[in-house]
């Protein structure tokens, strides 16, 4: 596929002049909203009874803690596995090129 022409905007030096989403003040606001929403979803459990299937899944805030911890462990596992299986993204191309050179060398 040929590379299409893409307009490129200059990003202002001053963070407060950038698009709304990237301003430090907006990022602070977004974090506050996030914490409020997170707090509300947990607090709502005071009013809603959660039935358990297996015991601990009925505990207060179980889904919140379980969701958070499983994601943290998956990210950490991926990070560790990454040390083992990550390769430069031209890994296979290099292998093919190296093979070609060797063949040319033989000839």
């Amino acid at each position: 596929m040929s590379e299409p022409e893409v307009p490129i905007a200059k990003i202002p030096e001053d963070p407060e002049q950038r698009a709304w989403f990237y301003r430090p003040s907006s990022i602070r606001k977004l974090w506050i909203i996030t914490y409020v929403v997170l707090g509300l979803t947990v607090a709502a459990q005071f009013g809603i009874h959660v039935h358990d299937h297996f015991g601990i899944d009925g505990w207060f805030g179980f889904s919140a803690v379980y969701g958070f911890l499983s994601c943290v462990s998956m990210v950490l596992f991926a990070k560790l596995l990454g040390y083992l299986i990550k390769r430069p993204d031209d890994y296979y191309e290099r292998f093919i090129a190296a093979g070609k050179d060797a063949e040319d060398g033989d000839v």
Partner: protein
Amino acid sequence: MFELAFPPAFILIIGALLIALARPGMRPVIVLAAPLLTAYAIWQLPDGVLLTAPFLGYQIELVEASTLRRLFATIFALMALVGGLFGLKQAKWYELAAGYAYAAGAIGVSFAGDLITMFLFWEFMALFSTVVVWCGGTVAAKRAGVRYALMHLIGGIILKIGIEGTMIHTGSIEITALALDNFDSWMILIGVLINAAAPPFCAWLADAYPEGSPFGTVFLSAFTTKTSVLALMLLFPGQSVLIWVGLYMVFYGIIWALLENDIRRILAYSIVNQVGFMVCGVGIGTEMALNGVAAHAFAHIIYKALLLMSAGAVMYQTGRRKCTDLGGLYQSMPVTAVCGIIGALAISSFPFTSGFISKSLISSAAAYEHLTWVWYALTAASAGVFLHAGIKFPWYVFFQKDSGLRPADPPWNMQAAMIIFAAACIVLGCFPNLLYQYLPYAVSYEPYTAEHLLTQFQLLLFSGLAFFVMLPLMKRTLTISLDYDWFYRIAMVRGARAILQLWTWLLGRAEALWAHAGAPVAARLKGWHLPDGLLARTWPTGSMTVWVVVILVAVVVLGQR
């Protein structure tokens, strides 16, 4: 009856042919009309075996309809329609034709009443999906297409061994639930699972699909894996081995997607993840689980195509497909961003999207069967889906750091396709009975309880928190992650080279041995046996007479005694 039972797959095949033959001006009409006609034909089919034909001494059932088969065929036709709209003007005509033939194969498998028909359409799909991969048009696509074709040919051979064994040993070619107590059933299971991207044959999917064009990849995401989910539902419902296969796929998809930098490869890994949920549901095998699998396949095709359309739109407009090159695109591509985010929410089973009403059927089925560990694993995986696809994809493409790129939204037909599927995600999520009424078994499940909403919001929002807390650990790098394809892309090549080297070395040694030990022996042998040698020389007739006389004299003298 015959008119009604005209195989819907053939309509789409004719459509594919017409796309190839028609004048360019007529093509868009055919692209839109063929799947609509196919869908109409699908909905005219009553239940039961509708069309049989003699084939190699067997009576094959070209069309057998049921609620489940019709549901899968419908979503395949719908996928062809909206996928066709997405590539209406921009995709090459041969790509659209191949994509439609590929979809026709999937519809053919959906209605196949026996193993032979299933196999024929199965291979038809392998053929045309390979063409779709090749339509990516790059060297990488060409190579990935060859690997893809090889993998599916191997899968096809394994499937055929199983089918022929079943035909010989049972005399039946009927598609019915098989017991896993003999070699033939296992071969069929393995053949089908290869198409589902089950381990250790999971690498072909993330290897080949992302190399298609922005339009081809949308088609590729829908058919192969979902027809094998249907085949698993028909042939192996309730086989508990599938629970574990499915769970492996679920976590494999998440972990590899987390490590990935290419946006379309992230989405490819997440196909394996989602198909894992379905395979697991087939393994649970209760009516509720199978309903969940059917609903999830239907919902998944829509939101996964939507996600790949939004990734494809970004790629079409920017020519870039790596997280490290993108960011901040929400500013100039609002339609693509909103549609992509809706797809991302749907895949994460966010309430009021289609994923919420379909996936919860599967995890609730696990809970009702008291499969404790399966339920915990599926719940952790649901959190992981939000992590790797629900947030990671839109975050790195549309937000993260501002890349400064300001591409416009794609042409109108691409936008329209995205908007249609985004709307479908939300409508199905808000009105679950639209989908539930077409599931194979009666549904008595209510997804929208206060309790379910609460636990789902807690699970997803705190997974989101984990993403942003762990963000520094997920800094994108210019890397790929090794997978089982390493064995056939590197290890086998090295192995072949090593064998070649060993052979060359052995030849060298043999020559050396020859020079040292063999040559003197050979020289003596030559002395005896070559034309001038003692034993090979021709002798004059006279000398022979002399020798005959000598022998005669000797005999006479000795005989005198």
